[in-house]
């Protein structure tokens, strides 16, 4: 704020002062340690997924998990508010802890043919934006992602999107994912499945 005040003070006398009130504002910064720790949490998560450590990843999920990826429709700009499917409609993911357990159990059978032989994935996470919530120990964490998947001999899939998470501190450097809303930047899913986690 001090820098802005200085520039106003430098305006020559008599010149109308411009209001910057409608310039989008960087949200209030959280403690730099929280920012770093939550970034590292997302990187830890990516490392577990790319390392196929699904049960360890599962332990990062809160019992009251909501994990949702809507479908996205091509809409006119007039109807853009209905671009993303609402709850209660077919979605790409609409999981709770129980159904997430099903998915991981399926991989653990060793007979989930879509993932046997397993895919090679690489999750790239960036644009991490952290904000406080009304609940102590819970933070909103938004991030962008690219997930690259290479499968069998020549199958390549590339996904990009944004995640809007709520994470909860459950111990020193321990966090759990309470809710995740994933906006995948696709309409028709271009891959033959979404047998990866985002």
């Amino acid at each position, binding site marked *: 704020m001090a820098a802005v005040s200085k520039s106003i003070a430098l305006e020559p006398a008599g010149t109308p002062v411009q209001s910057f009130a409608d310039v989008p504002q960087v949200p209030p910064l959280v403690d730099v340690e929280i920012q770093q720790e939550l970034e590292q949490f997302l990187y830890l998560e990516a490392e577990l997924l790319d390392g196929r450590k699904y049960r360890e990843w599962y332990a990062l999920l809160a019992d009251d998990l909501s994990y949702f990826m809507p479908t996205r429709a*091509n*809409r006119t700009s007039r109807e853009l508010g209905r671009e993303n499917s609402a709850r*209660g409609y*077919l979605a790409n993911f*609409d999981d709770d802890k129980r*159904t997430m357990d099903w998915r991981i159990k399926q991989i653990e*059978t060793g*007979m989930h043919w879509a993932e046997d032989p397993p895919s090679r994935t690489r999750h790239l996470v960036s644009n991490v934006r952290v904000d406080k919530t009304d609940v102590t120990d819970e933070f909103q964490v938004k991030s962008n992602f690219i997930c690259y998947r290479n499968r069998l001999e020549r199958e390549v899939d590339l996904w990009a999107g944004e995640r809007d998470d709520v994470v909860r501190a459950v111990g020193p450097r321990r966090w759990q994912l309470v809710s995740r809303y994933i906006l995948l930047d696709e309409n028709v899913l271009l891959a*033959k*499945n979404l047998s990866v986690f985002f």
Partner: protein
Amino acid sequence: MTISANDLSKLTDWQHGQISPKIFVDEEIYRLEMERLFGRTWQFICPDSQIPRPGDFFNTYMGEDPVIAVRQRDGGIKVLLNACRHRGMKVCRADMGNIKAFTCTYHGWTYDTAGNLVNVPNLEDAYYNDLPTERLGLIEVAQVDDYKGLVFANFDPTAPSLREYLGDMTWYLDTFLDRREGGIEARGVHKITFKGNWKLAAEQFASDNYHASMTHISASRVWSPDGQFADVHYRTTGYDGRQVTFPHGHGMAGFRIDTREDMAQFYRARGQGEIGDYIDRNQAEIDERLGPDRPMYPVATVFPNLSIRASGSLGCWHPKGPHAFEAVRFGFVDAAATPEEKEVLLRLDQESTLALIEADDGENWSEMSRNMARSPQVQRMPLNYQMGLGHPGRHDDTYPGIVIDRSISEFAGRNFFRRWLEFMVTTEAWPEPDTEGLYSMAYPSSTYSERQDVREVARANPR
């Protein structure tokens, strides 16, 4: 040079259960398919409840033909070819919504929601006011009809009515379309790409109960690690169920003779107790509407490319070339369910069915496709559809259609290709089903006159 009817027949030897991989990969056969099959069959468009109000539209395909379904002011539905009459540009690029008019982004030609050309920029000056605009409306698909909330369309004006085309398949479709008051309500659209030929999926849902216990073994083990679920619900011995097929090509892959209690138990065994409870709560109503005999979990294909996995979704396989297709599926719930029930039912079914089950199908289809498309040796290898060959089907007092006394069979698959071939080789008129061909396959040991008798019995006892 167009492939001959004789060559097509040689490639599609349904009588002996030997189908050439070429019909899944050949570019010319694909092109002919778009004309001869998709240009003349009843194609599923969308649930009626997807477009409830005038001006609501849904953008989809019939084969490779782009069409828009639009609710009219009088409550009817028109299906219009999504191509401007000027230069063929799509007049609608949004998936769905509500619109007052379709305006082409190229030169601004504008059509109302009935497809009439209502505005042409520069009509007076550049066109000398001399353009027959009344004849340049969007091309209307010849026939549109609705069966209990499912909208279908057919480009061919000479094709029989939808009701005749569906025939007694409706008895099975009613299992989910009409099991409670108010029928079904559409709940969203999901689109996904698969590698492979669309017929791999369509025939699988028509005829293939066989694959469930192996392809979907991981899903069944999730629900019972000891394998019990699969043994009870997937790998039937085959003796305790039925497969059904129809002259128009539809197929019900295989169902157990279950009572409604078992269906509730089926869902509980999959950790979806909420769905089991829902069925229990509404069992009396369902029984009253449907009677006690209907298979409650039909897996089926309405010929050629609408497949039903009637636990909460149904979808079309849209061909995108011989080696790819797009699955466009709709979620649905009983309209009579409460809002909370609807949400839970849809979510749980989606999570179990679309999530756990379908990925493994996709793996089969893409690797089969790769083999068939690229390998000359594989292309010479006829695909084997001989399960149950030579064993007769029959008419059944309870189950309409040609009934096979096994829940695991490939009879309906042979019939699927029989009917496919009829469309591919019959060009001078809309192909009425060759019931003699089907019945000789169904009742191989009977004489021609015996088969005629069977046909008479069937006609005398419509459902």
